[in-house]
């Protein structure tokens, strides 16, 4: 399997009374009342350094993401971070996983096609192209996208980007949402016709079906841990089977908060940071997330009937609860390793997105977490699935060398047209 370091780039030093002063980590806190630009400069640099450190320590990929107007993560343009990481990891066997820029909120979306192509050229073909629809608050409030149009814009934009990457001719795009008289992108990605596509989702049935039909990698970006993702995971694999796709675990990515220490007791060093993460950073009220139109009527109805994702009263939970309920896998390397292997097998995860920095975690503790994880946990995960499945959603140039002797043709190779 592949393991990627995920980073949100949060504000690490919020005032203690933050959640009493504001009703939301999104939109409401005014920059000048909370933030210090010099500190933020340090956070951006630490984030890049932590990611580069993870690459040197053996992580297979580095994940950036886009969010706006909040304290929880503000890589407002993930391509800026991805470009820096591509340069910082020049020549290394590590993927730059942009997961990524939000298509509906960028107009025209060929801007993202260009940025991704730049990163793919800059990194020598190491890009994974992630295409999130974007959180409702980000797309519709921060960027003013009409909620009920977000999905249609997304789909048209994705189609446009894919065509712009590989078209041999100059073409005009006469779309419903975008019109361009001449599209002839410079540069084009190294990986043709397109880099591997990963599409994140947080529990919308419509997104799951869309991704399975497209045969892309679906990444479940939950913060509630593998234990709480079984309903969605089962729904995902049922959908995969119903729609005639293979059970290749690499078509599923999953995010997990992880904290590794010398012992289970010592892992309590992560307590303040995970509580900070869930109490302050994930402090987003429903009325900023459940914006009318963000979900189409069938998804909305299904969510009201039987939510794919459970909701929790995060403020009431403490470190012990987060660990017990599996939101955070914390403990000695052996504890984390056992839990992760069980979760990976249960959910059939091919791409694990390890959130090794969360909340107020200081730079040094993050480096320690990366170091312990990569030395003592990662080796036990790397070989999972590879005896049986080929990762079709990974940059070709990063494929590990084939084991000795010719590999038998597999069903998934045929699906891909190989």
């Amino acid at each position, binding site marked *: 399997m592949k393991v990627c370091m995920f980073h949100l780039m949060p504000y690490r030093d919020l005032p203690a009374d933050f959640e009493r002063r504001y*009703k939301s980590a999104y939109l409401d806190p005014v920059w000048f009342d909370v933030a210090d630009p010099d500190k933020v400069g340090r956070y951006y640099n630490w984030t890049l350094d932590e990611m580069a450190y993870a690459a040197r320590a053996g992580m297979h990929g580095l994940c950036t993401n886009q969010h706006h107007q909040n304290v929880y993560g503000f890589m407002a343009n993930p391509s800026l971070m991805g470009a820096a990481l591509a340069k910082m990891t020049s020549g290394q066997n590590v993927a730059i996983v942009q997961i990524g820029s939000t298509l509906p909120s960028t107009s025209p979306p060929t801007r993202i096609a260009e940025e991704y192509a730049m990163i793919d050229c800059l990194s020598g073909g190491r890009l994974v192209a992630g295409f999130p629809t974007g959180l409702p608050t980000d797309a519709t409030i921060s960027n003013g996208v*009409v909620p*009920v149009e977000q999905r249609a814009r997304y789909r048209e934009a994705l189609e446009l980007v894919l065509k712009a990457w590989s078209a041999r001719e100059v073409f005009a795009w006469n779309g419903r949402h975008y019109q361009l008289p001449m599209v002839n992108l410079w540069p084009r990605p190294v990986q043709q016709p397109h880099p591997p596509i990963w599409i994140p989702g947080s529990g919308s049935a419509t997104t799951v079906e869309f991704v399975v039909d497209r045969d892309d990698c679906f990444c479940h970006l939950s913060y509630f841990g593998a234990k709480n993702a079984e309903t969605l995971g089962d729904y995902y694999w049922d959908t995969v089977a119903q729609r005639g796709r293979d059970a290749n675990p690499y078509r599923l990515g999953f995010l997990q908060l992880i904290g590794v220490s010398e012992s289970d007791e010592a892992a309590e060093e992560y307590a303040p940071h995970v509580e900070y993460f869930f109490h302050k950073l994930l402090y987003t*009220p429903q009325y900023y997330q459940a914006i*009318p*139109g*963000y979900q189409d*009527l069938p998804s909305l109805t299904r969510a009201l009937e039987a939510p794919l994702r459970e909701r929790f009263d995060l403020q009431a939970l403490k470190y012990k609860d987060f660990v017990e309920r599996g939101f955070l896998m914390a403990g000695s390397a052996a504890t984390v390793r056992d839990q992760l292997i069980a979760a990976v097998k249960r959910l059939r995860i091919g791409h694990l997105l390890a959130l090794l920095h969360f909340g107020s975690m200081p730079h040094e503790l993050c480096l320690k977490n990366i170091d312990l994880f990569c030395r003592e946990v990662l080796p036990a995960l790397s070989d999972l699935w590879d005896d049986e499945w080929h990762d079709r959603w990974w940059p070709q140039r990063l494929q590990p060398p084939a084991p000795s002797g010719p590999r038998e043709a597999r069903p998934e190779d045929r699906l891909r047209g190989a």
Partner: protein
Amino acid sequence: MPAFGPRTLRLWQGGIETRVETGGDGPPLVFLHGPWGLVGDRDFLALLAEGHRVHAPWHPGTSPGNPEAIHRLDDWLDLVVYYGEVLDRLGLERPALIGHSFGGMLACEIAAAMPERVGRLVLIDPLGLWRADLPVRNWMILPENQRNAALFADPAGPAAARFFALPADPAGRVAAQAGFTWAQACTGKFVWPLPDKGLTKRIHRIAAPTLILWGAADGIIAPAYAQDFAERIAGARVQMIAGAGHLPQVEQPQETARLVREFLADG
């Protein structure tokens, strides 16, 4: 009370199914509902139907069974031309238009684009204008308690309780909740992110005699907007409604219906 019956029109090259509630006898009147759908307006419509033939179309996308219809219209030009087709299909030459909130903005746009098609115009707490000093509150992203207090003069009163009431059976409950949200999504398509789409450039074309009603405790659109509309529509009259927030036809249906009927009867 006069009986109301729904019928379904197939419009827009067959792409939009529109349910229309029709009832009562008398001169024709078209009611254009606000962001929360037609369900809460039924008592008010019944009162109007005592003396009028009332037609109340569900906005595109909100008719049961046809949510995809919302994707057949992109902008205000589409929406206004579509409502021209609705009037044609209902066989209404020059009806009175009564619009609430989003429906009020829509009624203004129809009356400005097709002044010859609107006999009289009643605007109930309409959207459509924007004042930087009194920004319209975005009802789609308000916490429940703030939303309820903005919609109702008495958010704990019986009208609010009826408006937000859900059926007891689980399926009906889900359908009602989903419908309530989806109606905001469909109407929101035309007013997101701000309900100012240039009406102020077109509003001078409204020729119909106009009555502007406003809930004195409207917490979504400040009652001061009533005067802004009145200044831009020749001869328009303003009437405040006490004991009502953004939904006077729900919170004070008798009084609102009385004012509408008097205005429509007057000439």
